[in-house]
């Protein structure tokens, strides 16, 4: 049984030693065989298994592809089959890698195999004879040897003649079990470390090969798909089958190579194990040949501690390789997980935002179609009337009928349906649905991956692993940061954009209704009361209606553009977030991920706190000095960034209050203005103005007030109470407009004119007998404090002066713009009535809030200071609105914010409102003069683009952008997109009043 080398070592040794060595070798050989088998079965086989499975699946896929081709299926079907197959293989591999990445015991097979091997060695030791073995000393033990002491040499010198010449026999004794224990339980495990390293290395490198093989496979599939696209013929099955077979077989070579690598690793391990077996037997024989002789001790006790240490090291080495396996599988699995998240994200957006947006456009078109058809019929009917042969009475009847039908269609039916579209759950709950999808997506993402960053991966053979640089990559937290916080925030306005589409159509239909009512009404009235002939009137009406039709078509086109814009922006936002998410997870370090999470969650000093979590062991408290320094830094930061209290205000509310509720608390003015009915003075002034105007007097009204003081709501109220029955046209200037060529079409449309220049339009209106009320809102958008910026407003004032006889002008303007313009242009000279809205009283604020709340249909409960529903709801409500009135200083936007901020819970059809927490805005007083002046200009103009800001302050655009961006970062201004390339900044409505107070204190506004 013993091999040649061992036999040579046994020559000259007592027979007993030879027998023992023989037995030991036999048992060791069995144990080694078991180890090899177990290693191959439980450890190395997992790579082989991965390889085999990929190979089988690949072959199956391409056999299937060949079958599809033979069955004459289309190119697309075959491509789909390949794609699905690729996804299936990818998913299967992803799950296997995920098992490794998530596994608690990554190379447990190897560790179990070695543990069993060590147990087998212990068993061999126990079977070795424990009694002392007495054997005759052989010749070699009497010869002087290097390293012998003088005493040993003397003893050997005496014994040698006694043995040779006197025939004396010398014996020695030793314990074979002790020798076995030392060499098998202490010595051999130390030498097994190298083998354990080989096993770990084999497993790790084979896993890498499996990954690269899959990548090779995937690129081959892509090539095949491209090849399919290039093929001219649609059904040349033989050629296609040949291609599929080629792809099927092409990868076989790679499989064979990897298989050969596995076998090579196995062979190397097997050889190394055999070598160790021989070596340990040789060392055992050497010891057994000398133990008990002179100069050699009889006993040879194995130190149990050394044995344990050797086993521990073996275990540690395998454990470290296991760490590398987990880390590597973690990196790859994370990569696949990111791809999965990206796909899920796209699905979520496709199935929600994009689908609803597309459906919305279809519905809007469906609503516009009957209106256009009815308008077309009316136009045709009017044309018939002008062709003659129809009596005046018939014409008038025809006109009245069409007027009634169209007005009912526009102002009642279509508007009702459009409003129901805007209020539909599909749109109003879109953000909540999307948030829920995102939440599920995040929850379905793997929480953490143990990864090794690429720089730390072993890149060469023979690498001995040290401490494994495993890092915990917080995948779910990163995904949450990017999707739930960033993407949700970026898409927060998407349903607003959808509502804007509906409102644009609504407005257009409403205007059409007004035009129809006015034009056909004028025909009917003038025929009946003035006795004019249809020929004189119908032409004008036809022309007006045609223009109204053109405008409706143009508005629908604009809506189409808005709809496309929503789709484009959504796709761009999702793609951007997905790209940055991928980049963050795959390219950035774990520390950077942690930083990003902390930055987004807005924790103070988050970056500073993130570093120790990677480098410092947990639980070690910071040294007092470091703590003091950290606190000092923290203090310094807090002092500089005092404005942090106002950052993400909207986001915080978005996270707390469902969109369905929030939607009704938009800062848009209320349609319902019941709460303003108490403003009898203002309404009385409007009534007087109307009376005076109807008597032919100049009565232009300027409605002046701060943003959020209820100017628009007052107009709504006046329209219901004082202006009913009078033709009214209304327009709100939503963004800065300082060019005459942009403004003239607005006026032309409002006044139903034909001229393309202001001068002619003025003459037209002066000459016209038509009397109407024109409401022009936010006139402060019509000037710019820069060269040429007052010209448009001057022209408008002149226009108002000239046309005041026929037109009752009602304009609204911001109070601070009014103050300035009154100084600059003596604005008040051009108006007969000046109505200052002042600030909303406590009751009006309560009315404005409650009107919105009541529209939601939720029940309302006020909470006491302990956070429980107050027993005295009326008293609690009284106290709440008193506090709101004090904090908001009569500003409705501020009141809306504080109301939403106070919402504690929205559940079971009830809203709970906690006490108001006032924002600390002391930092405003420490803002620079330059910053405050910028805010002053934004307030005076309503909103400012960077170009306009640059023109006011005579500075380069880049500097203007930087200054406004800085104010935006501070949360002082908000950016609104008005088109593809037009962006304006307006003051954060919540901060409007505090900023105004500070501007007044600094004398920037009056």
């Amino acid at each position: 049984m013993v091999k040649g080398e061992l036999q040579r070592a046994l020559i000259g040794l007592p027979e007993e030693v030879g027998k023992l060595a023989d037995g030991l070798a036999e048992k060791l050989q069995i144990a080694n065989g078991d180890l090899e088998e177990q290693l191959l079965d439980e450890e190395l086989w997992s790579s082989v298994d991965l390889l085999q499975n990929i190979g089988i699946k690949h072959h199956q896929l391409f056999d299937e592809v060949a079958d599809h081709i033979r069955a004459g299926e289309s190119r697309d079907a075959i491509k789909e089959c390949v794609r699905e197959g690729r996804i299936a293989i990818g998913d299967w591999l992803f799950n296997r890698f995920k098992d490794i990445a998530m596994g608690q015991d990554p190379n447990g097979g190897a560790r179990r195999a070695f543990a069993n091997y060590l147990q087998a060695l212990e068993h061999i030791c126990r079977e070795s004879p424990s009694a002392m073995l007495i054997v005759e000393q052989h010749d070699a033990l009497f010869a002087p040897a290097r390293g012998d002491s003088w005493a040993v040499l003397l003893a050997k010198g005496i014994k040698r003649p006694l043995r040779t010449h006197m025939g004396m026999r010398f014996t020695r004794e030793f314990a074979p079990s002790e020798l076995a224990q030392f060499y098998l339980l202490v010595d051999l495990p130390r030498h097994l470390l190298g083998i354990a390293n080989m096993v770990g290395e084999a497993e790790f490198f084979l896993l890498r090969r499996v990954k690269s093989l899959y990548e090779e496979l995937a690129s081959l599939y892509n090539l095949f798909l491209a090849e399919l696209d290039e093929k001219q013929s649609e059904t040349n099955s033989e050629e296609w089958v040949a291609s599929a077979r080629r792809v099927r077989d092409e990868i076989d070579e790679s499989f064979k190579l990897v298989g050969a690598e596995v076998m090579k690793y196995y062979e190397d391990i097997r050889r190394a194990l055999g070598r160790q077996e021989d070596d340990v037997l040789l060392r055992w024989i050497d010891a057994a040949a000398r133990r008990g002789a002179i100069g050699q001790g009889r006993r040879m006790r194995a130190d149990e501690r050394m044995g344990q240490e050797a086993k521990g090291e073996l275990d540690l080495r395998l454990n470290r390789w296991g760490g590398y396996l987990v880390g590597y599988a973690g990196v790859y699995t994370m990569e696949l997980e990111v791809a999965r998240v990206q796909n899920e994200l796209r699905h979520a957006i496709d199935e929600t935002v994009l689908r609803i947006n597309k459906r919305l456009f279809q519905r809007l078109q469906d609503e516009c179609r009957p209106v256009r058809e009815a308008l077309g019929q009316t136009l045709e009917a009017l044309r018939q009337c002008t062709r003659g042969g129809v009596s005046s009475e018939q014409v008038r009847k025809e006109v009245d009928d069409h007027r009634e039908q169209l007005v009912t269609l526009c102002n009642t039916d279509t508007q009702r349906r459009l409003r129901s579209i805007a209020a539909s759950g599909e749109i109003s709950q879109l953000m909540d649905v999307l948030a829920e999808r995102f939440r599920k997506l995040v929850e379905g993402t793997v929480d953490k991956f143990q990864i090794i960053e690429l720089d730390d991966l072993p890149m060469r053979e023979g690498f001995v692993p040290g401490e494994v640089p495993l890092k915990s990559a917080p995948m779910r937290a990163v995904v949450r940061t990017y999707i739930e916080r960033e993407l949700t925030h970026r898409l927060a306005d998407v349903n607003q954009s959808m509502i804007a589409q509906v409102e644009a159509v609504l407005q257009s239909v409403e205007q059409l209704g007004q035009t129809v009512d006015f034009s056909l009404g004028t025909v009917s009235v003038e025929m009946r009361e003035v006795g004019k002939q249809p020929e004189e009137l119908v032409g004008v009406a036809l022309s007006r209606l045609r223009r109204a039709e053109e405008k409706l078509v143009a508005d629908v086109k604009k809506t189409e553009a808005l709809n496309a814009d929503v789709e484009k922006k959504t796709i761009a936002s999702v793609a951007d977030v997905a790209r940055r998410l991928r980049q963050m997870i795959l390219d950035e370090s774990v520390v950077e991920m942690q930083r990003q999470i902390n930055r987004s969650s807005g924790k103070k000093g988050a970056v500073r706190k993130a570093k120790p979590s990677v480098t410092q062991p947990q639980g070690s408290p910071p040294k007092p000095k470091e703590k003091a320094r950290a606190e000092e830094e923290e203090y310094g930061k807090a002092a500089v960034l005092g404005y942090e209290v106002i950052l993400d205000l909207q986001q915080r509310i978005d996270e707390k209050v469902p969109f369905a509720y929030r939607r009704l608390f938009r800062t848009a003015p209320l349609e319902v203005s019941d709460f303003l009915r108490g403003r009898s003075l203002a309404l009385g002034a409007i009534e007087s103005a109307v009376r005076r105007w109807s008597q032919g007097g100049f009565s232009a009204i300027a409605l002046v007030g701060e943003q959020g003081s209820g100017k628009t709501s007052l107009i709504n109220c006046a329209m219901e109470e004082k202006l009913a029955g009078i033709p009214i046209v209304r327009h709100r200037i939503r963004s800065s407009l300082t060019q005459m060529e942009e403004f003239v079409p607005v006026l032309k449309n409002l006044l139903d004119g034909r001229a393309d220049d202001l001068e002619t339009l003025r003459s037209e209106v002066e000459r016209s007998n038509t009397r109407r009320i024109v409401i022009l809102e936010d006139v402060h958008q019509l000037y710019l404090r820069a060269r040429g910026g007052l010209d448009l407003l001057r022209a408008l004032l002149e226009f108002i002066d000239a046309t005041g006889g026929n037109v009752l002008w009602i304009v609204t303007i911001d109070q601070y713009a009014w103050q300035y313009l009154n100084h600059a242009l003596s604005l008040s000279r051009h108006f007969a009535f000046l109505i200052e809205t002042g600030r909303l009283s406590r009751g009006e604020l309560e009315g404005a809030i409650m009107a919105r709340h009541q529209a939601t249909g939720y029940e309302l409960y006020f909470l006491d200071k302990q956070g429980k529903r107050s027993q005295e709801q009326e008293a609690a409500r009284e106290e709440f609105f008193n506090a709101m009135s004090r904090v908001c200083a009569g500003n409705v936007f501020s009141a809306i914010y504080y109301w939403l901020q106070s919402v504690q819970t929205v559940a079971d059809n009830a809203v709970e409102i906690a006490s108001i927490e006032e924002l600390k805005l002391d930092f405003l007083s420490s803002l620079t003069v330059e910053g405050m002046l910028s805010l002053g200009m934004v307030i005076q103009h309503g909103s400012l683009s960077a170009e306009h800001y640059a023109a006011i302050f005579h500075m380069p655009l880049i500097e203007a952008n930087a200054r406004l961006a800085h104010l935006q970062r501070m949360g002082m201004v908000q950016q609104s997109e008005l088109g593809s390339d037009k962006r304006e900044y307006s003051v954060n409505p919540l901060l409007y009043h505090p900023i105004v107070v500070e501007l007044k204190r600094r004398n920037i506004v009056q």
Partner: protein
Amino acid sequence: MTIYALLLALALLVWCSTGVLRNAFTRLVWHFKMPFQPGDYVSIGGVGGRVEKIGWQAVQLRGTSGDLISVANALVSGQPVVQTVADSGSQGIEMHLPVYGDRDETRARLAAMEALLLSPYLALDRPFDAALELGPSGETLVRVRAGVFDASQRVLFESSIIETYRALLYEK
């Protein structure tokens, strides 16, 4: 001889310290009625700036370019002190703009007025105007009187007026 010498020294000392005493005496008078307060913007004789400190010997002003100017108290009491900054923080300015050779004078006046109105630094709590006047050598100038909302922005205010004025004057 010794007495004469002592008297002479005393006289010399009194003569030398007259200024010191006068300054201190002025400060003492101010103790009852201060002509201005630290933080006020004043113009004393030919110098102006923000009052930093009122000492026993001198008043320290911080000029618009950041220089520290000391004016002896006695000198302050003998000069007209103009408080250029109102309680609101605005400061009055007066500047003369040239009417360039071939330009229409009325157009220049209107351009100056427009430039004044458009400047974001204009204080609305002060009157403002632009009028033509003749310079020392008979040339026509536009005199602009207005206020800047914050004295620290005076230079920017004047600069913005000049920039807009020139641009308006030369635009076609």
